[in-house]
């Protein structure tokens, strides 16, 4: 009876949420979330895990609105079919992969919550519903991870609060547009970034436990990654990007799987723009979270294979879609550090599988990058061949699991996320630093891009044949890319502060990347 009540409440809430609008829908959502929270407490035998429910309930309440416009019949049927398929899939996974002594129906609520959210994300009636779907998706995914990896009240509450991140997307008049950020805020972010970088250089502080049982990861890698994300946010001067950077950077510092994954998903929710690209991003985010979950549920060598096999495509789906001037580079940077951290959980066999898939992914990126956008079959692929192929090299660099490869990948991230994104219209044509700015943006030595490419190739040579071959293809493609794309003249006007900073960062890290390596390795 104790386990039946939450399941009945959940089913009733699900039906209300699907078929009704307004406050009735809100009541249904609360029933689903409350039942899932109760299920969490029952599954983990820890009542404090139910603190997870606070965030999604708040977010749902804040997103209640007037009824959404009805869908066209075909779209409605498609959405219904997708919802049924995903919900059954969630239930099937819970049924086939029971966890501990908990009845499968209790565990299934988290999966079905996530499935319902994904269905609303895939085929929303309007943007508000897409946001609601994002809330449910993050809430359900983090609940599933909490059931497998309990973290205590602090972690559970944080994971639930992160489900409210879609609210930060705001009521933008145009999808993808973001309000400007004030210079003092950018300066503050830059100062925080420097602080984190200093901590990384000093060796970090390992794994610590914050109040309420929240586990923090203060390793040099995580600190360096967070620092880089904050720098990107400072450079962007956009509030949404800053919010996503704080979320993603914070997630890197969290050791518990549930809030860690929820942070990345929250960043995606803030940044996700057009629908086609958003679907790919969410699929990628869920694959990243599914891998560790299946490794625990399935267990043994098969579970490890699933974890390794889902990590590569999940990351690939986060890298490919174009997300605006700063959103894409931020996701690139965040996912690079996330995957780098996840690689250390893989065994030798899992790492080998990941490397094969990464090499294949790099070749896929090469193919996609060389096709015209209308034939690439990917919605809104990254705009330039150089960006696409550099992304492929980042994939290769991280998958070498070697410090040299990671350093090369970070340098390429700096090139894409700071240098290229700072001046999408081209380098400044006038002023004393026009040449330096051109050099910093180019692939000539001593730019960060050149250093990154060389280091990735060096690292790949010591790893596997597949990686070195894909690295060679991508490197050769990068040499050809300027010849194959239209010539972009320099923009009129002189360099601004951002151009100066980007140039300085590129040339400094290109000449002396050992500084970055010390930061990544902790002195």
């Amino acid at each position: 009876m104790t386990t039946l009540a939450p399941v009945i409440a959940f089913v009733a809430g699900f039906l209300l949420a699907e078929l009704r609008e307004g406050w009735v829908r809100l009541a249904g959502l609360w029933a689903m979330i409350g039942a899932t929270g109760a299920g969490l407490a029952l599954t983990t035998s820890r009542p404090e895990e139910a603190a997870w429910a606070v965030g999604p309930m708040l977010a749902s309440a804040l997103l209640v609105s007037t009824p959404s416009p009805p869908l066209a019949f075909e779209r409605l049927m498609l959405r219904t079919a997708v919802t049924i398929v995903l919900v059954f899939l969630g239930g099937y996974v819970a049924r086939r992969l029971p966890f501990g002594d908990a009845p499968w129906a209790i565990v299934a609520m988290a999966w079905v919550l996530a499935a319902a959210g994904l269905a609303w994300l895939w085929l929303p009636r309007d943007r508000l519903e897409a946001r609601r779907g994002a809330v449910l998706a993050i809430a359900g995914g983090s609940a599933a991870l909490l059931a497998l990896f309990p973290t205590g009240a602090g972690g559970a509450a944080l994971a639930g609060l992160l489900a409210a991140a879609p609210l930060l997307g705001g009521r933008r008049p145009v999808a993808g547009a973001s309000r400007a950020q004030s210079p003092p805020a950018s300066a503050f972010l830059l100062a925080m970034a420097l602080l984190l970088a200093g901590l990384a250089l000093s060796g970090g502080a390992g794994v610590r436990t914050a109040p309420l049982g929240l586990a923090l990861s203060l390793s040099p890698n995580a600190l360096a990654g967070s620092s880089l994300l904050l720098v990107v946010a400072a450079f962007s001067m956009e509030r949404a990007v800053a919010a996503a950077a704080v979320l993603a950077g914070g997630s890197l510092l969290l050791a518990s799987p549930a809030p860690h994954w929820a942070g990345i998903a929250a960043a995606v929710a803030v940044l996700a723009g057009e629908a086609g690209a958003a679907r790919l991003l969410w699929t990628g985010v869920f694959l990243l979270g599914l891998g560790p979950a299946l490794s625990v549920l399935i267990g043994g060598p098969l579970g490890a294979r699933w974890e390794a096999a889902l990590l590569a495509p999940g990351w690939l789906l986060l890298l490919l879609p174009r997300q605006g001037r700063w959103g894409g580079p931020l996701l690139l940077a965040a996912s690079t550090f996330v995957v780098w951290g996840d690689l250390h959980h893989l065994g030798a066999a899992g790492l080998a599988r990941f490397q094969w898939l990464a090499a294949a992914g790099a070749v896929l990126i090469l193919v996609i990058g060389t096709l015209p956008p209308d034939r690439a079959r990917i919605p809104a692929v990254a705009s330039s061949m150089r960006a696409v192929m550099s992304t492929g090299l980042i994939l290769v660099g991280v998958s070498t699991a070697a410090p040299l490869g990671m350093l090369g990948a970070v340098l390429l991230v700096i090139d894409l996320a700071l240098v290229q994104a700072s001046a999408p219209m081209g380098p400044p044509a006038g002023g004393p630093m026009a040449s330096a700015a051109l050099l910093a943006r180019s692939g000539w030595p001593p730019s960060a891009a050149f250093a990154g490419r060389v280091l990735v190739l060096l690292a790949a040579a010591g790893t596997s044949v597949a990686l070195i071959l894909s690295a060679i293809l991508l490197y050769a493609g990068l040499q050809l890319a300027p010849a194959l794309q239209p010539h972009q003249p320099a923009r009129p006007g002189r360099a601004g502060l951002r151009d100066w900073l980007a140039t300085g960062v590129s040339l400094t890290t290109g000449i002396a990347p050992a500084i970055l390596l010390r930061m990544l390795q902790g002195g």
Partner: protein
Amino acid sequence: MPLAVQALLPFLLLTGGAAAASLPALRRRGGAIAALAAAGAAGVALTLLLRLAPAERVDIPYLRAFPTVDLLIRVDALAVAFGLSLLVTACLLILARLLSDDDRRRPWSSWLLTTAAALGVIFAGSLVLVYALLRLCTLAWSGALDEAAPRGRGLRTAEQIADLGLLVAAALAAAGVGTTAFSGLPSDALGPGTFLLALLPVAVRIAALAAAAERPRTPVLFHPAIAQATLAGYLMLRLIAVAGGRPPGRELQILVFAAGLALAALVSIQAWRARSSGTARLRLAAAQAGIAIALCALGTSVAAVAGVWAWLGVVALTALASIRQTPGSLGALLTTAAQTILPPGFLFVGLWLGTVSLVQRQLEGALIPLWLAAGLAAAAALRHARWPAGEPRGLLSPAPVPLAAALLLLGGALPLAILPWLVIPAARILRGIPGGTLGWGLLGITAGPTAVPTLAAALAAGGALVLWLRLPMRRSFDTAWAGVHPSAPLLRFDLPDLARWRALPWARTAWLAYAALVVYAIVRQ
């Protein structure tokens, strides 16, 4: 002065000269500043060379900020010899340009920076650093900070792709031994495959040298001698040195030997068919580079000397060929004479040493293609030789050319002027040269039991050349040949129709293949 400081002086002089030449106040004297800077750097290089002990190798690290790639200068006789040759060549070209009235452009800064970058390649102490500086050299000569700039894009892209071969070879060597520094690489660090990859930059620069003949002629072409011939020669010899004195594997030695001779023969034929003597001279420079490649593949102590001699000669002859010379001038005749390979040509010493090397290895059969290629090159050179005619002032212009060509001819006739202090020390870096391997005197050189009287041969051949140029039958031969027009290019091919290939569903296929691989990764145990 400490060696660490002295090794940096040439770079400081060149970059300082480039900065000074670009200042508005000094723009008018830019040429003189450039010439002085190059000459000063050459003086420092000469001092370095004389200061080095036999077979001495010094690594000087300056900066350890790039993981596995220290900023490292390697000072040995091979690097300093090529550095000296590069700087003297640059000085010659700058002087020739300065004395020419036909072009008002001021390329001094670009030329000095290109020279500095090329010098950096020569003095770099590791393979990855060589690669990075090759890229900088390409940037310096092309001036294309914007990589998409259309000017010179073809050659830039070709160099970028080919240089990647060197980087891959370096990466594979580093994977095996943990370093790419020359001092840390064992002789088996480069296998046949990686050696071939590392030779790609050499191949593309030789091709660029041959292609330079097709470009519109300015009074002085700087890049063929500095950025192509010198670097191709140095890279080839350095790789041979890393591999222990010969290309790794007998098959690869044969391949390199044959490829060099094939290149020499083909380009010599093209030189023969050239309409102008200027075009022919540049093509002959590429043909001589082919001969030099073949000599490097022989793998004996004598061949090491031959290879160094030949490449230093290629650099000098390319420089002379890069200066526009009036047909019928003394400089043109002397340059042609120096390019004949056979006496009185400068490369004859290298050719003869290569012959001795083949005989020592009991490979007399290989003498036929070697001498055939040399003969073709000599014939092509003689085809365009003209007896000087015209006013004395025109005969001697551009001023440094006749003097430089005469010095080259003298060097070929009297090898003892160059061998002991420039060529032999550099060749020792490739492989050991036991005492008694080579001897030299006023009359000629000896290698083992054989000797060649270079002075007598040069004088005799020079006399024969004069006779040939003055003979009446030469004029009728020229008249007969003038009626023969160069025909269509040897090779002709059409690009395949790509429309059919573009229509294939590449994206869908790629995604399906990737998905199948993911499933396989899960299923496979």
